[in-house]
C-alpha cells in the first residue's frame, strides 16, 4: 500500500478543515496514541522537554483540551471561539516508506467576541501510514512572532 503526494497534501488540507469546523473528535482520531502536539516558545527551539513551550501535549492533554471546549462550566468559551486556517500548498520534505514529513505555511485566525487575532505559522507534520490510513505521528507549529506577548490562544492551529 502506498500513498501519493496528492493524498498527503489532501490530508493536510482536510485536517485544517476539521479544526475550522470544530470536528474535534474526528481530528483526535487522526493521531497516533503516542503523538505530541508541540508549539515552541522560542524561535528555532530544539528541546520541547527541558525548556518552556507554548504547548507540548500528549493525547491525554489534547483530549482534555477538546473536551473542555464543550464543558458546561468552560467560562472562557462562553461564547465560543472560532478559527480559520488559510494554508499554502504543503511541501513534502520527506517520503521514507510509510513515514512522511510535510511543511506548511499558514495564516491562522482566531476570534471571539470583538477580538480577532492573526498568527502566521509554519506547521511541520510527521505522518505515518497505518493500515492504509495516514495518521499524525507528531505535529509542530512555529509561530512567526513567537516572542510577542499573546492574548488567549484557545483553539488549535
Amino acid at each position, binding site marked *: 500500500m502506498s500513498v501519493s503526494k496528492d493524498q498527503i497534501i489532501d490530508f493536510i488540507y482536510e485536517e485544517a478543515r476539521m479544526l475550522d469546523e470544530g470536528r474535534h473528535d474526528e481530528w483526535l482520531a487522526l493521531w497516533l496514541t503516542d503523538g505530541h502536539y508541540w508549539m515552541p*516558545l522560542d524561535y528555532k*527551539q530544539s528541546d520541547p522537554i527541558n525548556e*518552556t513551550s507554548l504547548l507540548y501535549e500528549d493525547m491525554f*492533554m489534547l483530549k482534555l483540551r477538546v473536551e473542555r471546549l464543550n464543558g458546561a462550566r468552560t*467560562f*472562557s468559551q462562553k461564547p465560543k471561539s472560532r478559527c480559520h486556517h488559510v494554508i499554502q500548498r504543503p511541501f513534502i520534505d520527506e517520503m521514507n516508506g510509510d513515514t512522511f514529513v510535510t511543511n506548511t505555511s499558514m495564516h491562522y485566525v482566531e476570534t471571539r467576541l470583538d477580538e480577532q487575532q492573526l498568527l502566521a505559522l509554519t506547521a511541520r507534520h510527521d505522518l505515518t501510514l497505518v493500515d492504509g490510513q495516514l495518521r499524525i505521528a507528531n505535529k509542530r507549529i512555529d509561530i512567526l512572532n513567537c516572542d510577542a506577548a*499573546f492574548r488567549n490562544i484557545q483553539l488549535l492551529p
Partner: protein
Amino acid sequence: MGFHVGNPKSAADLVQAHQVHRDVYISPDVYALEMKHVFANAWVFVGHESQTPKKGDYFATQIGNQPVIQVRHKPDDIHVLLNRCPHKGTKIVIDRQGNTGKFFRCPYHAWSFKTDGCLLAIPLKKGYEGTGLEKTQNGKGMKAVGAVKNYRGFIFARLADEGISFEEFFGDSLSSLDNMVDRSPEGRLEVVGPPLRYMHYCNWKMLVENQTDTCHPMVAHESSAGIAVKLYEELNLPKGAPKPAAMQIIAPFMSPYEFFEGMGIRTWPNGHGHTGVHHSIHSDYSAIPGYFEAMVETYGEEKAKTILDENRHNTVYFPNIMIKGPIQQLRTFIPLAADKTIVESYIYRLVGAPDELTARTAMYNRMINAPTSIVGHDDLEMYERAQEGLHVNGLEWVNISRLLEDDENHEGEAVLNGTTERQMRNQFDAWRKFMTYDQDQQEAAK
C-alpha cells in the same frame, strides 16, 4: 476622575480595611500615581543575574512604567540604568537582551556611556563648551536607579534615591527566595529560555491578588481540572500505574475547600505573603531519582529534608511578582496601563540537580501560565470580566473582607486559615504605605 491627579493621599483613601474603591483598578489617574510613588518607593524585581552572565551583557525590562536596563558592568557588579539617552531621550537598547561590549552607544548622535552609565564621549564635544551641560544630569550620562540589590542571584531595584532599605522592605519574607535557591545542591539558579509573555486587559493588581486567592481554583478551573479528573477516571488505569502528567499538575486545582483552608496563608509586613504554610498543591509531586542524594551530599540529611519539606505554594513579593519555590518559577506582572498588564513567567534550573526537575518546571509553566493554557484562559476571563464590571456606577467598592479580624494590622507576621483574604489586604496596606511614603518622609522631616 481627575480627582486624584497629583494627590497620592487621596488615592490612599481608596483603601479601607475591608474594601477598596474600584478606582484603584480602573482610574488612569490612580495608575499614574502608583507608577510614580508605589513603584518608585518599593523594591521591584528586575531580572536574574544569569540573564546577564558576562561583562557587557544587558537585559531590558521595566520597573513599573519605567524602561530599565540590567547590565553587567564588572564580573561581580550588575547595574540597573534607565533606558533613555540623556541627550534627546532615545532608548539606548531596544532588543530584550544582548551584549554591548565595553560601552553603550546611542544610535542617534553617538553619545556613549560606560556600562555603569557614566558619560564616556560626545562627538564634537567642543560645541557644548560654556553651555553648562556638564552640570546637568544630561551631561553626566545615563541615569541609574536609586539602589540595586543582588539577592542570591535575583536583582531588585528601588527607583527612589532615598527610601526603605532592601532588608527592611523584605524582612523574613526572603525565606521563600532562600528556599527556592537552597533547592539547588550548589545553591544557585540559572534562567532557562525566554519567559512566557501573556497580555491581559486588566489591572496588574488583580493578577497579584489572584496568586493567593484560594477560593477560585475549584470554581474557575472546574473546566480544566474537573475534566482532567473525569478523563483520568475513565482511563481506569491499574493501581500504581503512572498518572498522566496533567493529573499531577492540573488536577490538584480541583481540591476541596478544606484542602485550601488547611494549607494556610502567611503574611509579612510590606505586602509580602504566601500560601501553602502546611502543605500545598505541590506537596505530592513524585520524587526524582538522584536529587535527594545530591541534596544530602551538600547539606547533610537533616538540612536537606528541611529544605525539601517546605511546600510553599505561591509567594507574593509586593508589589508585582510571585515565586513558586518548589518548582523554581517566577511570574512578574508588569503594568502597562490601568487596564493593561503583561505577565512574564520565567523558569529556573537548579544547578547541580537532575534535568527531570527542569522538565517538570517547564511542564508546569506551559500547562498553567501560557497564553495557550486551558487554566490561564479561565483566569484571564475572570480578570477581564471584573475590569469591565467595575465600571458599574453606584456599586463602587470591592469587598476583600473574608476572615477579616478585629484590629487586624500588618506590622507583624501572621499565619492564618488558607482561605483568608488577608494577603490581599496586606498588599493594599503596603500599597497605601508606599503611595504616600515619600510625602510622609518629607513631612516628618519638616
